[in-house]
């Protein structure tokens, strides 16, 4: 089976010289859901931003067989749907429907066709009724689902979610997990929240100081790094 995402020896330095990624190797296969765990600042977000070409480092990154280079970016950004951590930065249009239609319009669809694609995507996340609403009135959970709809409207093959449970209360987290569980795309979920990771993923990778230091079944990785909230061992 060909991997959907192939990363080999990825290195990335910030402008000030700090090494954010120090040689990352990774593969994502069709139908997989992989959790990306690790402490703050370990490079998780920097890593996922290389998958749709927002950042470009040294090494090899390819998506669905296409190397991540400038010429391939339009195609890659359709295949990789990135849901950002901050929904307010992602929902930048004045109404929900205009925002969800943003991606389809950029793909060159006619306005009416784009509108239909957007309504379908909103229906998929159960929020068709909110089409005319302004984003800043919505709850955190609704915003996250609208952001997801905006990605789904582009018909991606891979969903990448960066800390999707931030600001979500437990019911909203459960709803999101249920929704994601129903979607057929391969998924990469960056999360701090082990129960969420366990609910959706079978495999997990653990980032530390810019490298992947573990890659295996999610329960094992969580256990090995004690990646659960609560008292520290020995207290």
């Amino acid at each position, binding site marked *: 089976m060909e991997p959907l995402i192939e990363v080999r020896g990825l290195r990335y330095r910030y402008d000030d010289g700090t090494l954010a990624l120090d040689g990352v190797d990774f593969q994502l296969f069709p139908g997989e859901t992989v959790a990306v765990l690790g402490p703050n600042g370990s490079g998780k977000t920097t890593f996922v931003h290389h998958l749709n070409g927002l950042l470009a480092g040294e090494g090899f990154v390819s998506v669905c067989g296409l190397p991540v280079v400038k010429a391939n970016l339009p195609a890659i950004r359709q295949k990789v749907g990135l849901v950002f951590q901050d929904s307010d*930065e992602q929902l930048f249009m*004045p109404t929900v429907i205009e925002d969800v239609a943003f991606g389809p319009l950029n793909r060159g669809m006619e306005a009416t066709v784009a509108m239909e694609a957007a309504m379908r995507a909103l229906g998929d996340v159960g929020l068709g009724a909110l089409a005319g609403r302004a984003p800043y009135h919505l709850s955190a959970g609704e915003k996250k689902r609208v952001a997801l709809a905006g990605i789904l409207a582009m018909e991606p093959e891979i969903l990448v979610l960066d800390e999707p449970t931030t600001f979500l209360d437990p019911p909203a987290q459960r709803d999101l997990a249920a929704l994601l569980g129903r979607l057929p795309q391969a998924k990469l979920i960056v999360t701090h929240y082990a129960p969420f990771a366990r609910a959706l993923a079978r495999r997990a990778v653990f980032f530390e100081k810019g490298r992947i230091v573990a890659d295996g079944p999610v329960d094992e990785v969580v256990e090995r790094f004690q990646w659960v909230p609560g008292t520290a061992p020995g207290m």
Partner: protein
Amino acid sequence: MHHVVIERWSRGASPLHARDARAKAILLLAFLVALATTRRLSPAAIGGYAALAVGGILLGRLPLAGLLARAAIVLPFSATFAALSWIAGDAARAVSLLVKSYLSAVAVLVLVGSTPLPKLLRGLESLGAPRLLTLVVQFLYRYLFVISEQAQHMRLAALSRGSRRPPLQFRAAAGAVAVLFARSYGRAEGIHQAMLARGFSGHIRLLADTRAGLRDALFLAAGVSLVVALRLSLGAPWNP
């Protein structure tokens, strides 16, 4: 918050809400120009303009008392100059300042209370407003509430850290504004990334504009005729 209330009004349903944004904008302009060019505000003139404004409120099924109350926000400034005019012996001007500023405010509220801002912006665009400007207004409005909330939190945080000495408070306020700037800049970066991630390549494409119909044309014609008739009945513009 004021703009939240206006926005709620604009999402309502009424014959006025259903009209094309361009027609409403042009009618507003006609009303404002007629009012502005009316030199002598007789009671009849005031009655005429007020009747048109109230007609708009009713047609838009907008809350009468609420709207009239909100328009009063312009009165403090006008009242100051009205008082000065009165003292200077120019009673007519005093009345004129108060009435014109107030009725203009009412008319503007009728427009924004019956037209969602995105529709209004697209309408103004097709009437010739530069697209870059309307897009900036659009984004400004989108993030106004979010960033204002942030500013509010910072203000409260600064208050609770409460230094009594003005020089320190000044420095704290400057620091807070600088941080707000930096976070806003970072937010703009994030928005840009989110746009790129969904295929943005330099041109913001928008959903189709609504087409104006016969009803809109009739509405505009009727409205402008009323305004012009009122204005001319109050003395031709070239004959003070």
